[in-house]
């Protein structure tokens, strides 16, 4: 089969690789009909996530058709159309039973690696480094899905792929980010990053009752997309973010701040340059410019919700301000399985049509160009869908 493989920084290629097979009784093989490139894939593309190996198959946002299933999979039939959460969860451990699927105890065969770095291992993910399981990803013609009986969600055939594809990651991710803000009547929510995750966070915050949402980015097309959802916007290259947000909130500061940027934040301020230097000489791994801004501007007692990915170490983390203002910090990979049924209802009811975010479509064979286009935000690119 053909698959998008990682070979190093800014080097992805479509290769011919062997087809996957059923290995365990709870496996299924899915023929991929649509797959997307995530902002998280850009961290791999930039080579900032450890434990990747040349030849690894990328991709964790995908849907398709069940073509084969293991002996223990009883709740699905061959031919079912399914969406696949990006985290792999066993359904049987304490974490899964408490709906913390991205913390599943049993799905990461390389748990020892994550334990070395983090003390404990989060769940395995599709196509996202060996430390997080080493599983082959979904930017391919076929994928082996472990624990398919908990990891596959059937969708109706007549729903267009682009309406349901983002249930695999970015819609639940934006939703969880907003839910973590514990939004109350009258709340103002500030969202850093108007990429796909930011876009869904903005819409989810409004769905959950936020009074105002302020979106921050520098890319005009992305800011426009935020405006279309009903957000006010700040272009961080033209305005001082702290001052603008304090002004908008009458000096109170936002009730909740969402960092939908993560470890590769851009910035021209002193701390951002300092981060760049430290990362360049391996003194730190993550650039926490957005996180610092969010902590500084967030109102006293407010919440900083962090869907943006961080991988390792941050220097100059403003713990004093976070402590002094008694902030709540919420973060983590999304528990996709938890949100999927509810968000599916929202799509069916017409509360939201996630396909708004798609700006570019490529064939799988053009993956290298697709990655470059998304990475450089060329030509108004916000979200790329690949068709195998």
């Amino acid at each position, binding site marked *: 089969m053909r698959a998008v493989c990682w070979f190093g920084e800014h080097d992805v290629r479509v290769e011919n690789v062997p087809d996957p097979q059923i290995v365990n009784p709870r496996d299924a093989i899915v023929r991929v009909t649509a797959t997307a490139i995530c902002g998280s894939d850009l961290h791999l593309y930039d080579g900032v996530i450890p434990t990747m190996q040349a030849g690894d198959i990328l991709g964790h946002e995908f849907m398709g058709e069940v073509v084969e299933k293991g002996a*223990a999979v009883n709740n699905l039939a061959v031919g079912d159309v399914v969406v696949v959460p990006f985290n792999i969860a066993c359904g049987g451990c304490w974490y899964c039973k408490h709906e913390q699927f991205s913390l599943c105890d*049993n799905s990461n065969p390389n748990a020892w690696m994550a334990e070395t770095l983090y003390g404990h291992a989060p769940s395995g993910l599709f196509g996202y480094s060996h*430390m997080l399981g080493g*599983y082959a990803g979904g930017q391919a013609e076929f994928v082996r899905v*472990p624990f398919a009986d908990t990891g596959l969600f059937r969708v109706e055939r007549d729903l267009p792929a682009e309406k349901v594809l983002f249930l695999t990651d970015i819609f639940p991710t934006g939703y969880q980010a907003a839910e973590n803000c514990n939004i109350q009547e009258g709340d103002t929510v500030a969202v850093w990053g108007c990429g796909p995750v930011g876009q869904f966070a903005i819409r989810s915050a409004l769905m959950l009752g936020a009074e105002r949402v302020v979106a921050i980015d520098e890319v005009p097309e992305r800011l426009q997309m935020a405006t279309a959802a009903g957000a006010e916007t700040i272009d961080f290259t033209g305005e001082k973010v702290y001052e603008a947000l304090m002004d908008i909130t009458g000096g109170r500061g936002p009730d909740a701040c969402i960092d939908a940027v993560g470890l590769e934040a851009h910035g021209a301020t002193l701390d951002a340059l300092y981060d760049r230097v430290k990362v360049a000489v391996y*003194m730190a791994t993550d650039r926490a410019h957005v996180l610092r801004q969010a902590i500084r501007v967030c109102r006293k007692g407010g919440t900083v919700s962090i869907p943006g990915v961080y991988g390792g170490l941050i220097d100059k983390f403003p713990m004093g301000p976070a402590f002094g203002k008694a902030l709540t910090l919420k973060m983590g990979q999304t528990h996709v399985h938890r949100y999927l049924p509810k968000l599916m209802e929202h799509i069916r009811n017409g509360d939201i049509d996630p396909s708004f975010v798609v700006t570019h479509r490529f064939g799988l064979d053009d993956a290298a160009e697709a990655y470059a286009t998304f990475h450089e935000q060329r030509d108004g690119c916000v979200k790329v869908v690949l068709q195998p």
Partner: protein
Amino acid sequence: MHLRTALEAAGDTHQNIGTIERALSVAVGAKLVWSGLKRGRSISGQLLSAAGSYLTYRGISGFCPAYAALDGSAPGPLSLFVSEIRVSEAVTIDRPAEELYGFWRDLGNLPRVMPHVQQVTVLDERRSHWRVDGPGKSSMEWDARITADEPNTYIEWASEEGIYLQHRGAVEFESAPADRGTIVRVMLLYRPLGGAVAAFLAKVFHRAPSQEIREDLRRFKQLMETGEIATAEGPSARRAVTPAETDSEDSRRPRLRSSVQPVDLHEDEPLRRGDACDPVDEAALESFPASDPPSWNG
């Protein structure tokens, strides 16, 4: 006496090195292992690694067989060759103790979660015969006897007299608070072939007992909680790597730095505490100068 009590009683008397020396021992030892591994499978590389492992072991355990031999706290000058290895590892499994005990007591099940155990043949109610991967391509065999058996709570066993790999082992099943399942704790006390030196070499040749037991327990948990053992393997996937298989050049080895241009630990670089490879220590070291060192600490 339960093995656990024995292990705890034995614990303190076996530390004969001060804290600072232990830290140094770990740091220097780790450094040597790295350097040794970088030289690959050459003899000098392996010797360096062996020496390094010895120092690391000494630092971590706080026990120096050589000192013990010198100051007479060990039975004799040959104590270097009779050093014991103790392992205690625990995992919490979301299943009732009866089920876990039942699986374990049926010893023939164990190779399913312990890949290095080739076969366990049950001889009678108490006795069993074990065949296990040995060094290189060899295998080792022995008879074992169950010495204590408390249903759903505790099993203890010992290798029969006269074999070259003497050991005692125990597994304990204890219920965890509220709905958290059952704590399974495995304790091993053994004298590996050839004593201490072999144990250190075993470390280099990738048979670190505590890591192996931890992985066994992880597989046991997976099998009991999910009915299968998680794997990313398959025709289109990469082969999984065990902790033991990674060496310093390997991109799969977890490190917090960029995977693209791994930092090389140069031999002529001065030793730093970070070389001991604890990410928190490393962070404390590297965050300097920072407003709140260490900047990353649980």
